């Protein structure tokens, strides 16, 4: 068995990896260079697939032995069967999607549980920036308004509502700052929102 030093994994990913049960079947949407899947495969005995569109990230996945499928998440997950996965990860990727609702429905079709993270637009420095009349630029939203790939700006409260509408029940919701959970006033003090979601029983995604 190969072990990596846990410190090598980004703090937020490490926190999220703790939510993934050992031996799970995992789908990682927007898996990047495969770091998370590789960690889950080698440290937690998970078995997984990643989806990534960026040409430059595919070779790193391949070298790591991560099963990566190059496609646009927006094109749908037709390649995966219903309930094929224990956990679907969609980490810091949802805010770049056009059809967020469709993707969430697809996630709930192929997986029993989902872990979704996105930059919390209601993080206090973002609110301050807006009060000063400027769009926020921060570590989690590092772009200017004119070059950002982030199409969707959501707060923790916004996402709770959409999750419910697409048939996902919120199991846990944590706001992270610098990879550590924020307990007091999370929708103000957390820069990254992380949700653990479960398909509502008896719910057939439209």
């Amino acid at each position, binding site marked *: 068995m190969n072990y*990596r*030093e846990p410190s090598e994994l980004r703090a937020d990913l490490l926190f999220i990896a703790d939510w993934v049960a050992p031996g799970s079947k995992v789908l990682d949407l927007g898996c990047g260079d495969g770091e998370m899947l590789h960690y889950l495969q080698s440290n937690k005995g998970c078995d997984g697939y990643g989806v990534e569109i960026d*040409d430059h990230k*595919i070779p*790193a996945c*391949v*070298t790591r032995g991560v099963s990566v*499928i190059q*496609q646009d998440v927006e094109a749908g997950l037709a*390649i995966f069967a219903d309930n094929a996965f224990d956990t679907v990860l969609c980490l810091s990727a949802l805010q770049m999607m056009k059809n967020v609702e469709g993707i969430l429905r697809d996630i709930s079709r192929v997986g029993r549980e989902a872990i979704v993270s996105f930059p919390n637009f209601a993080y206090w420095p973002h609110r301050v920036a807006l009060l000063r009349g400027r769009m926020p630029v921060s570590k989690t939203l590092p772009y200017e308004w004119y070059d950002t790939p982030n199409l969707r700006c959501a707060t923790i409260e916004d996402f709770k509502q959409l999750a419910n509408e697409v048939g996902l029940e919120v199991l846990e919701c944590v706001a992270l700052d610098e990879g550590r959970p924020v307990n007091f006033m999370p929708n103000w003090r957390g820069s990254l929102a992380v949700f653990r979601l479960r398909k509502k029983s008896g719910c057939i995604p439209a």
Partner: protein
Amino acid sequence: MKTLGIVSPLSMHFATPLPLQSGALLNDYTLVYETYGQLNPDGSNAVLVCHALNASHHVAGVYLDADTGARTVGWWDNMVGPGKPLDTDKFFVIGVNNPGSCFGSTGPMHTNAASGKPYGADFPLLTVEDWVHAQARLADALGVRCFAAVMGGSLGGMQALAWSMLYPERVANCVVIASTPTLSAQNIAFNDVARQSILTDPNFHGGDYYAHKVVPKNGLRVARMVGHITYLSDDDMAAKFGRDLRDGGYQFGYGVDFEIESYLRYQGDKFSEYFDANTYLIITKALDYFDPARAFEGDLSKAFANITAKFLVVSFTTDWRFSPARSREIVQALVKNRHQVAYAEIDAPHGHDAFLQDDARYMNVVRAYYERVWHDIGGRGLHDSETGGLRAELVGGRA
């Protein structure tokens, strides 16, 4: 950059008849092949490269004609060689010419021992699976029990796929590029146009043209022209030729007006000089017949149930002959069986031919995959670049 330099083919005779899918037997036959690199002591670093329609065992390196000085570079020399994505400093690579071909292995132009005359029309039709069984005998003879990888593009990819199903225990990795699990109706239609042009050539003589000392060149030429169109993308053709006129104006005749006509006719002429018409018929039929899901009511995932190999599947966005959708069928059936697969869809402009061309994204993915294969067979040499953690893990994992 280092190269393989001058290479030369080897040949091996097989006296045991090869039973074919059609029920016929290929009585005795010779396979021509080339090898590059060294087989390691435990025989774990062998890679078989399967060829497509218009190719052979001459995968990489150069043939030098002693008389004319002419150099013939292998068809996948950009992919296979020292330091190349399939690195012959690490792997022992075999290229083998399939029976029925016209590049040296037993084919329809060779003498049929039973009649003392060239096989011609009597040469049996072969399937992709028949070729794989023939290749397996060569692997046995070369001492290769399990291939680190079997690899091919287009029709070669079908052979790699067939290997993973027919000999699951003998294939650790399968690399399938610009390929498909079956030909579509449109693919078969193009093949039949090509075949009809050969079959109706007055010089074809029912396949026994060798005895008449003629060649159905016109038929072969048109067949190649049709085939060649399907290898290129509309955009690529538009960019290369557009509506460019050969002599600046319309000629009001049936000679060459447009550059594309000139190009295709030249390609057809060249091809008809060296290719064999019976071989063209045999190979296009093998393409048409390939359908591993056929025995499983069309369910490809059932056909893949016994596969143990890991896969790399690559397609090219502008390939309309074997489009990305066809490669995704392969990927989907692999995923359904929870087989390991990496799939790259390369946005290259060159259509089906892209699999033979240099594209950094394509080459990098294949290189990365073979680095992984090398690691899996216990080799070393994963580059350190940004994956410092991975490297540390490899060293740790060996302790």
